[in-house]
């Protein structure tokens, strides 16, 4: 064992001697990485918006739309990690899905105004315009462009509820859907352009 260790020590010594014999040299090694653009919408503060009973039960406006307060849903921690983004809001009026013929003087649709706050300076704003029979319930709008990356709690607000011609509402369950999209304000050019 002793003779083997001696041989190894000599070898290391010879190697170090060779290094000292060269001139000094420096090299730069780049380190690169990328971060993809990401937009995320936080989990909604409630899974749906239930406006409850919408008709007046007594008095002069019995059977017509009650004065409904503003309803909101929060999407906490929504963000985009790059600038040039916008929020798009698509909503459909609340419609009662009965397929029977609509009686004269009555309606089966409740329209509303909706917006999404706290993204760009100009928020998206929609007002649905379904007719009394519930046709053409959808509306869509995009807000302004947010120039920088942003992290915020988005608030979707519903207000200004109305019924075509302020008609009396047919009894039943009314339902609409709302979709919020957060992404780049400019559409990508087609490949090859």
């Amino acid at each position, binding site marked *: 064992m002793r003779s083997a260790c001696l041989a190894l020590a000599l070898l290391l010594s010879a190697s170090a001697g060779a290094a000292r014999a060269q001139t000094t040299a420096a*090299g*730069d*090694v*780049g380190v*690169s*990485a*990328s971060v*993809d*653009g990401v*937009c995320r*919408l936080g989990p909604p503060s409630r*899974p*749906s*918006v*239930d*406006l409850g009973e*919408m*008709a007046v*039960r007594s008095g002069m406006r*019995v*059977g017509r739309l009650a004065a409904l307060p503003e*309803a909101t849903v929060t999407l906490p921690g*929504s963000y*985009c*990690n*790059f*600038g*040039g*983004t916008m929020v798009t809001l698509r909503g459909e009026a*609340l419609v009662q899905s009965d397929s*029977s*013929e609509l*009686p*004269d*003087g*009555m309606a089966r649709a*409740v329209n*509303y105004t909706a917006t999404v706050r706290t993204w760009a300076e100009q928020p998206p704003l929609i007002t649905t315009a379904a007719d009394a029979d519930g046709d053409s319930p959808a509306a869509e709008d995009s807000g302004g462009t947010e120039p920088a990356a942003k992290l915020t709690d988005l608030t*979707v607000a519903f207000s200004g509820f109305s019924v075509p011609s302020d*008609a*009396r*509402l*047919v*009894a*039943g*369950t*009314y*339902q*609409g*859907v*709302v*979709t*919020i*999209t*957060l*992404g*780049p304000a*400019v*559409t*990508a050019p087609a490949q090859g352009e």
Partner: protein
Amino acid sequence: MKSVRFGLAALVAAGSGAAFAQSDTATSGPYMVTGTVPVLCTAGTLSDDNGVFAVGVLVDLSTGLLRNDLSAPPKILQGSFCTSRSTITIEASPLVAQASPQTPPEGFSNTVHFTATAEGWTPAPAVFTTGSATNPNAVQTRETGFTGDIVVSIGSFTTDGGASLRLVEDPLYQGAVVVTLAAAD
């Protein structure tokens, strides 16, 4: 030179961040927005005065028998509505001499029957005849919600006990008509 090339590569990666983001749009929803409208019915309001069918003098003054030309303007229940399937029911009680309710003398009657009708709500009017053993058309059903006017009228007056009976004198013969709207299951 090598380090410069790396630097360019990093710059391209940063610049393409926006391009990547275009395929990374976040969508939330669709969320349901819901509400309900309960089943409601209201019979509306009467079109005029105090809601009394003023029939006038009931008898032919020369014979003492019931006049055969009695009539009264119809009443209109304005703004009646139900938000769902509904039934309309009409009921009536005959005109009875208020000061002489007891059994009248032979050859006389103190009661006048009539037919009450409610039209405008259902395809077939609701009809009720006082003194009739049955009134199968007194209840009518409408399959959908409705808003409109209900016209209530009375007619077809007859003397209880027969047309040959004369009516006892009384300053007030009084009956009633009741129209009921109700949500139907």
